[in-house]
């Protein structure tokens, strides 16, 4: 019991401390590719610390939703992160929810962020919310389908079971095609959900193209810090989900200290390399026009659907 509690707290601390580093790493990679030196990878920590010290300004026109949303968003994202195996294949909280709970914990945070964007009544907030609603409604079917494709091959919707089976090479070697399709679909979904290029540009301050930035335009001080931290956390949870479902090799399958240490080291290397890949993708591709996003997410949905169909075809 105590051991489980320690593991849960350790996982929460790792997720919270690593997420600003991942955000900083992606910025650094982009800066290097643009021939700039760029800020240190630890800059986001300083930004968060500064924002927490600042006094927040809240508009008179807002309701309780505006002040409650940052806490709700942060809590739901962290709860989602605790359901995903990070460095140990059996998370202590795996009884609390499966992969479908994970999807809807993210959706809960997104829903409240959309409401908060509308709450202040500014034109940009409403526009950002409307766009976020489009993207969220298009990513959800793709994400659910790709998750079903993985769950079918593993025979379970429990994330710990899926990761454990794959880590012991019980699932992926018998079905490479569904996994490949589901991987491609989930990667596109991760880019769209976390507001990266080609769907949204996290570095933009041009009002006409913003999605996530437009929604959080009214936030300041500790509220903004929480929203930013939650966004970094969401990115990290998606990266964790992808590396641990599709390449869980090296993850600790037992509680031995050596295995745990190795699992943690391998996890950090894998997540960092995926973050570098995202940084390179952001430098290589232009942002899509808003009305072309449906094409990209349509591709993600079809890929996930194919993953599921292949599971049935390939069994002959």
């Amino acid at each position, binding site marked *: 019991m105590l051991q489980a509690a320690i593991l849960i707290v350790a996982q929460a601390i790792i997720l919270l401390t690593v997420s600003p580093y991942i955000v900083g790493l992606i910025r650094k990679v982009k800066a290097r590719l643009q021939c700039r030196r760029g800020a240190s990878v630890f800059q986001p920590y300083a930004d968060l610390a500064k924002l927490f010290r600042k006094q927040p300004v809240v508009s008179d026109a807002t309701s309780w939703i505006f002040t409650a949303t940052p806490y709700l968003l942060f809590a739901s994202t962290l709860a989602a992160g605790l359901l995903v195996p990070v460095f140990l294949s059996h998370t202590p909280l795996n009884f609390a929810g499966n992969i479908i709970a994970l999807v809807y914990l993210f959706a809960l945070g997104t829903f409240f962020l959309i409401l908060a964007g509308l709450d202040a009544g500014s034109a940009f907030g409403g526009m950002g919310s409307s766009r976020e609603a489009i993207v969220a409604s298009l990513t959800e079917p793709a994400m659910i389908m790709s998750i079903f494709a993985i769950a079918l091959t593993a025979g379970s919707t429990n994330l710990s079971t899926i990761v454990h089976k794959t880590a012991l090479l019980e699932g992926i070697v*018998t079905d*490479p*095609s569904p996994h*490949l*399709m589901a991987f491609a679909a989930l990667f596109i979904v991760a880019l769209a959900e976390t507001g990266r290029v080609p769907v949204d540009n996290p570095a933009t301050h041009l009002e006409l193209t913003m999605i996530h930035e437009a929604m959080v335009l009214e936030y300041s001080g500790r509220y903004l810090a929480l929203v930013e931290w939650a966004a970094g956390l969401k990115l990290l949870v998606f990266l964790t989900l992808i590396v641990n479902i599709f390449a869980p090799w090296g993850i600790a399958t037992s509680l031995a200290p050596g295995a745990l240490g190795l699992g943690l080291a391998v996890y950090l290397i894998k997540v960092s390399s995926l973050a570098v890949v995202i940084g390179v993708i952001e430098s290589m591709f232009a942002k899509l026009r808003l009305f072309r996003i*449906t*094409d990209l997410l*349509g*591709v993600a*949905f*079809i*890929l996930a*659907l*194919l993953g599921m*169909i*292949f599971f*049935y*075809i*390939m069994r*002959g």
Partner: protein
Amino acid sequence: MLPISPQIGSQMVDLGSALLLLTCFAIIAQRRLSACVDMFALQSVFLAATAVMVAFLTGIHHIYIAAALTVIIKAVVIPRILKQVVERLNVKRELEMNVNIPAGLLICGGLVMLAFFITQPIIPLGFLLTRDSLAIALAIILIGFFTMIARKKAVTQVIGFLVMENGLFLGATAAAYGMPLIVELGVFFDVLVGALIIGIYTHRLQDAFDSVDTTKFTTLKE
């Protein structure tokens, strides 16, 4: 004795045909004509790789020849002809289609399921290790056919036709370890000549109408 087990080999063939189907969807989702041509070339490379895998597993040598011809003709020569056509026409991308891209993708997803349900009663009767690819081959043929219907530009219609041919090749490999070599050679020659004729004919279309939109044909009068 084979160096790899038949089960792993069969999975490699499955994976190859899955990649073939994936490139079909890339063609459907792509607006830029030159990227469509590149995707077709990539698809032909995957087809050749799958054929080599089948040849390696079965020890049937003439499939190697067919695979080599696939690479030369479909991955090098025909894409080069099509690229020239695209370059000479000043049409870089297709903006108007009969079916828009998201709807096209969904229809193609439906076609894959249709192909799967049609072949489902037949596949368990087969004994070849490539039998699972039959469903995918049928799906590729249907998607190629759909591309010819959905797109208006002559170049993408040619690509749809060539995709259908790739699907037939995969189907023949899946159902019977490939056709006799002489038939295969005849088909390759036909496809090459077909692509050449359509290329020239597209130029004529451009000259006559200042566009390669095949819907313009409805205005032809005697």
